[in-house]
């Protein structure tokens, strides 16, 4: 019977929460796509920045080998820092979504558990009521049979006495 309540509760809530979970999960590829695009943008920025340094140096008549290392290093550090920020933001976004999914799972379990308890309580109450009624009816029928038998017995005793 307990299994039946569990199944009933799951059948009631699972579709509801599945819809919500699916919508939350749909954010994951969107997040990945967004950060992929942002990352590509950063790479492009890095390439453009390097090109600018080269062209600038070339414009100033400097040879490639004599371009100051600190300029490229500074650019690379800047890009690395941005990539790091991007990675952190992506992780944060993903964690937010995963947390929402987990919360939904907890909510689902809690709702199912609550419904199981409610259904069990309801069923118990109904059974108790049916039982009490059956006991009453049986008690009455028994009393009636006892009275009938007692009467028949008394009649027989009376007839035997006289």
């Amino acid at each position, binding site marked *: 019977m307990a299994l*039946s309540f569990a199944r*009933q509760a799951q059948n*009631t*809530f699972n579709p*509801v*929460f599945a*819809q*919500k979970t*699916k*919508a*939350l999960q*749909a*954010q994951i*590829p*969107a*997040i990945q*796509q*967004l950060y*992929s*695009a*942002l990352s*590509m*943008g950063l790479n*492009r920025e890095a390439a*453009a920045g390097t090109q600018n340094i080269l062209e600038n140096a070339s414009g100033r008549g400097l040879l490639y080998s004599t371009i100051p290392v600190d300029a490229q290093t500074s650019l690379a550090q800047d890009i690395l820092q941005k990539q790091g920020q991007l990675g952190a933001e992506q992780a944060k976004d993903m964690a937010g979504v995963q947390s*929402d999914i987990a919360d*939904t799972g907890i*909510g689902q379990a809690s*709702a199912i558990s*609550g*419904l199981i308890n*409610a*259904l069990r*309580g*309801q*069923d118990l*109450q*109904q059974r108790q*009521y049916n039982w*009490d*009624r059956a006991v*009453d009816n049986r008690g*009455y029928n028994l*009393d*009636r049979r006892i*009275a009938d038998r007692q*009467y028949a017995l*008394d*009649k027989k005793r*009376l007839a035997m*006495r*006289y």
Partner: protein
Amino acid sequence: MATRYTENATNELAGVYNPQQAVMNAQLPANQQLYDTLYQGLDAQQSAQTQDIVNSANIRGVGRDRLGQDVTGALGATVDLAKAQLGRQQAGDSATIQGKIADLNVQRINDIQTLSNALQDRAISEGKYKQNVNKLNRNYSLEVLKMNRQFALDKEEVRLKKAAEAAEAARQAAYYGYGGVGGGSGGGQQQATRKLTPTEQAYAEVGKRGSNDYSDYLATLDSAKRGNWYDKLKIMAYHDQFPGSYGRTVPLNAITTNNASF
């Protein structure tokens, strides 16, 4: 499984939740339409800006094949990024709406369950009340039945007892005999172990004659009115033993007149 109550609760709450759910459901296609439009806008913007680049290059006398890849490429990358942001935003919006729909459904289910419990409680309370009334009525009827039966038994016992006494008295009267109308002529047997009292004798004789010996009754009544004390006893015995035939009321003039010797 309390299906009846759940069905009733579902029907009761449908009027409250269905409009709300319809409004929320309508947000999904509206949201989709909004982002479709935004995507189209982005595509149109990309086309227009690409055209601007080409036109600008033409004006500057730069051949299409010599346009810097980085210009169109940068534009494409910017548009891709904007689309990705749009996609992220759409997924978030959609998740929010779906979440609200799910929350509404959860609330609906919980409310249905609560109402279902309340309906069941009420039905059970009513059922218990009816059962209690029914129980009281049945118990009362049973007690009345028992009392009526006991009364019938008691009556029957009295009747049988009297009949037995009468039969015994008759047996002894036949053995000893007593005077009076229709009674023994006196004398009788001499070997009595115990002589019956006149009252016992009268009851015995009447019991022997039974409930339909009207001629003896009338003769006895006449004799009693003339003062025969033994027949007065017989008249009382007739009325006491057979009220169904002779009535319960003893004619007073039969036993009160000329009763000096009684």
